[in-house]
């Protein structure tokens, strides 16, 4: 990449600092950018191109790669497992993200009150998103257990039937969504809370004096300040759930009957279990393309011009 060309082709110095920097300044600017971009190119572009190449071969580790052109992609698109994984991934994303956004807004308002001890409550609520998804999945698996699990115990205590979590294709998917919601609703709440912190107090006071209805207050006063944080939350969460791996992997291992097997899990299986590297690369490219589309939307939405909308918070 033309990092150095870019640096030297600039249209003259932009700040007084740069004007002061002469020949040594050029080296200094190179030091700022070249090592980082060099490493990132090496670590990102090279593997991606390599993997694009591999996806065109029928290649199992230990055997000779055979050129198959788009064969892997054709096989993939005719494989019901691929479509199941795509469906499961999209289902997880839509279900988890929409629940997280709704609960995140509600909890955001709940956490926005001021009283002694709120600091500790917030800390507790924000904790789950900092933990390793694998560990979170692990202890939820313990809680979802059919025989000694606490979840079914509590359900039966309040008169509900015990649920075959992790065993039934439908409930296993619900379980994965529950775990994701438990871990990531706090993230939405965090951003909502930051947005709520930017609402000017005089606006709120005026609304109270005008006896505005709650819905009016939400729509007219809070919403403009919540729009940007919610868009951020929505897109970060969508990207993360589209590449979901850890929690279904540890909760169910992708089962029962592959009904919790996401695209990431399918790719991992082809690579590690079947040693079918070409196929794994092809699947991973589908994930890259899907996420790239979503990321592009994200990137457009958070261009620096819009950052100004959100200043303070928490």
């Amino acid at each position, binding site marked *: 990449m033309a990092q150095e060309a870019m*640096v030297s*082709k600039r249209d003259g110095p*932009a*700040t*007084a*600092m740069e004007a*002061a*920097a002469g020949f*040594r*300044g050029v080296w*200094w600017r190179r030091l*700022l*950018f070249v*090592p*980082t*971009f060099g*490493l*990132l190119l090496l*670590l*990102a572009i*090279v*593997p*991606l191109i390599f993997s694009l190449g591999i996806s065109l071969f029928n290649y199992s*580790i230990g055997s000779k790669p055979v050129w198959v052109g788009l064969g892997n992609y054709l096989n993939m698109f005719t494989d019901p497992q691929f479509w199941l994984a795509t469906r499961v991934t999209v289902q997880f994303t839509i279900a988890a993200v929409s629940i997280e956004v709704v609960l995140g807004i509600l909890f955001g308002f*709940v956490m926005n009150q001021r*009283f002694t001890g709120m600091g500790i*409550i917030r*800390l*507790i*609520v924000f*904790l789950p998103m900092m933990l*390793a*998804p*694998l*560990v979170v999945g*692990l*202890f939820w698996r*313990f*809680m979802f257990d059919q025989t*000694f699990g606490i979840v079914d*115990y509590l359900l039966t205590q309040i008169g509900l039937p015990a649920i075959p979590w992790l065993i039934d294709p439908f409930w296993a998917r619900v379980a994965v969504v529950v775990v994701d919601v438990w871990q990531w609703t*706090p993230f939405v709440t965090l951003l909502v809370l*930051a947005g709520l912190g930017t609402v000017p107090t005089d606006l709120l006071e005026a609304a109270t004096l005008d006896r505005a209805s709650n819905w009016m207050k939400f729509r007219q006063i809070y919403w403009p300040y919540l729009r940007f*944080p919610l868009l951020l939350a929505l897109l970060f969460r969508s*990207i993360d759930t589209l*590449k979901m*791996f850890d929690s279904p992997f540890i909760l169910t291992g992708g089962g029962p009957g592959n009904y919790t097997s996401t*695209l*990431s899990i399918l790719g*991992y299986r082809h*690579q590690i279990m079947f040693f079918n*590297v070409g196929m794994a690369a092809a699947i*991973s490219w589908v994930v890259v393309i899907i*996420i*790239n589309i979503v*990321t592009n939307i*994200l*990137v457009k939405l*958070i261009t*620096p011009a819009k950052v100004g909308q959100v200043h303070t918070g928490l």
Partner: protein
Amino acid sequence: MKILKRVLGVVLALFVAAMFLFPLLWVVLASFKTKLELLAVPPVFIFQPTLQNYINAFNSDFPMQVRNSLIIAISSTVISIILGSLTAYGFSRYAIKGSDFLQFWILSLRMLPAIAVVVPFYLVFRMLGLLDTHIALILVYCLFNISFAVWVLKGFFDEIPLELEEAAMLDGYSPPQVFLRVALPLARSGLATTAVFCLIQSLNEFLLAVSLTTRVAETAPVGLSKVQTLMGVDWGLLSAASVLFMLPIVIFTIIVRNELVRGMSFGRMK
């Protein structure tokens, strides 16, 4: 009426907190139970606590895995903070052609699904004989940590008043000296926050770790994911190990609690 509303608000807040706290408390409780108590039906809430699970955890591979996790996370964080602060400072202070494009390219790397790089990294590291080594994971985590560090640190550098640096220039500081002696010290809380986030993210990562390590360089999450396959599941050991692994993360979270928004939104919100 007003008091009622207030009480209701507090009750709601406590209820929400309880929902998030309960699973954590349940693992902590589980980690002090004996095998029989762990599998008891109905679940037991009151029991004689035992430290046996923690002793077992210390006598398993777990301490070695934690050591691997720490070596990998710390090395990757140090590299990422050094390179990230240089580039973030560059983006913050110098007008570079295509600056926006480059920044977004870096952001898109952070969004890159791990599964996409697993395949090529596996093959490359296999060729280089670096599978199951610390170096492999350190390098791969740099990919994600550097892009994160550039974005978050740029926000912190943007906040430093330019006048301070210009004054230093007038005092005869060269640009690198301004960076080292003025900008970096002023951004130290930002550097610390960013480092903590890089550490947490590296400690928590699983897909790349499980694909690129087998035994020697195995990280703690990989170890935890495997315990379950040997002779059923030793939930006591797993709970104790999980608690031990989560403990530093809880402490880190307390340290960066005021900067959570910034860290979690890539510096897009404060």
